[in-house]
């Protein structure tokens, strides 16, 4: 589902090897897998997720999603790929003049889901319930707290019924209890077959729920596949 071959990313003006944000990454992630991406501040987690979300292209190397090399896809294929992916961005930006419900339904509808209006509405109501946002359903997004906005972003991602979820610090603005709730939601989604990738620096989370983990440091990636006891 996700294949990275010697993928590097650097930004214009810093082409020396040492300033590469990501350096020669190799990764294979199959459908239905769950992967943590952990690393310190500025390690390149967001950069990696943005590339996977097709927001930016690798500076070199090959990045394939669903078997398509992203550097050579047609616009219509890219659209299809994008419809199968949901991102939960680190910096959530909702449409402030729309209500919580409208923000979510717009994300769901952009996925081109032909589900009937009522089905998708019921699903959104259910998600809002699970995320503790039912009371805010018809409030404009501008009235939300940071943590609430993040939960709306999670609802947006899940309402789209994606095949791949890319979550960038999805619990970064949550209190510990709601953080566990959200992780639980994402794990359930994974159990039903969705591939999930979570970027985080919350090692507590990684320790409690052991999964395949990728460490990012100095642009390099180290993969820990074993799901045994914690070693850090």
């Amino acid at each position, binding site marked *: 589902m996700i294949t990275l071959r010697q993928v590097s990313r650097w930004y214009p003006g810093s082409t020396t090897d040492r300033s590469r944000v990501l350096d020669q990454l190799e990764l294979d992630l199959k459908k239905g897998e769950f992967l943590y991406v952990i690393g310190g501040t500025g390690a390149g987690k967001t950069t990696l997720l943005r590339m996977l*979300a*097709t*927001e930016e292209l690798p500076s070199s190397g090959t990045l394939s999603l669903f078997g398509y090399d992203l550097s050579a896809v047609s*616009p219509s294929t890219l*659209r*299809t*790929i*994008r*419809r*199968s*992916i949901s*991102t939960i961005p680190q910096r959530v*930006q909702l*449409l402030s*003049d*729309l209500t919580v419900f*409208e*923000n979510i*339904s*717009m*994300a769901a509808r*952009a*996925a*081109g889901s032909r589900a009937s209006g009522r089905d998708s509405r019921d699903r959104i109501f259910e998600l809002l319930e699970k995320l503790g946002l039912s009371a805010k359903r018809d409030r404009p997004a501008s009235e939300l707290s940071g943590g609430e906005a993040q939960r709306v972003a999670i609802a947006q991602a899940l309402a*789209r019924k994606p095949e791949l979820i890319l979550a960038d610090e999805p619990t970064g603005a949550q209190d510990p209890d709601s953080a566990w709730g959200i992780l639980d939601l994402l794990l359930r989604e994974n159990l039903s077959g969705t591939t999930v990738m979570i970027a985080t620096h919350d090692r507590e989370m990684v320790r409690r729920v052991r999964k395949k983990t990728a460490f990012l440091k100095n642009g390099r990636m180290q993969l820990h596949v074993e799901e045994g006891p914690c070693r850090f």
Partner: protein
Amino acid sequence: MPILKLSLRAWRASPGSQVGASLISSALLLCVALLLCLELSIQSARGRVERENRVTVFLAPGGGPDSEMQVTDRIVQSLGAHAETPVHSKFVSIADTMAFLREKHPELHAELRDLGQEGEALVPRAVHLTASFDEGRLGEAVSQVKKIQGVDSVDSTESRAAAVGPAIRGLQWLLRLLTLGVVAAWILGWMALARSHAASLSGIAGPLRLWGAGPWTARAPGILAGLWVGLPAGAIAAVAYAFLARPALQKLATSSALFEASAIPGVSGVLVLVMTSAVAGIASGALSGSAEA
């Protein structure tokens, strides 16, 4: 629904500027429409004047007023069969000519008067006719007229508009230049509005595209926002045209030979105004949307 709500962002945030934009856009559009009407009408008037021929038919001496009438009718009929436009005729009688001579050439007038009956026979009676003829048809018409009994001779001239032509053409160029200027201002206004709409809608197209929406869905809020100015502007221009500009133009057409009532569009003009303005709104939204993505 959310897309519709987003497209109304500009109206919610600054209704005044949207109303202003609609008014200005409608005024410019109306100016363009009027200039085009004038241009069209002058164009057709010019064609008419340039193709207009003058024929002078001199009647043979003899015959009373009754026969003069009959001959004139026959001439008009004969020319009318060949002409492209209705024939205008003016009969100049002996008395008319004598009156003219008394005014302008008193000696000649006195001499002719002194000659009595004989003198009157020397004074020509003529029918002046004007009409447009297609190429070559004038000669044919003249030869037909010559065959009419009671006709002495026929004089025909080509266009009498040789002097007026360049003046009208100059006026036409001036109008075209003005039209071009107003159209440029109108387009510029739309570009500025498109930019302000794109700014107020920034942050919408990005997520929509990332969610896999098609290019037109991503542009929809901008296109609709453009339409919400284009439609009122077109409607205002149409109403102003139907109730103010068109009656004024028609008045002008009845009072001046230079304008023709037939060149002033009615319902079609109203529709064109609304459509043009709506298309401008849609295009501005579509183009600014593509710039943002």
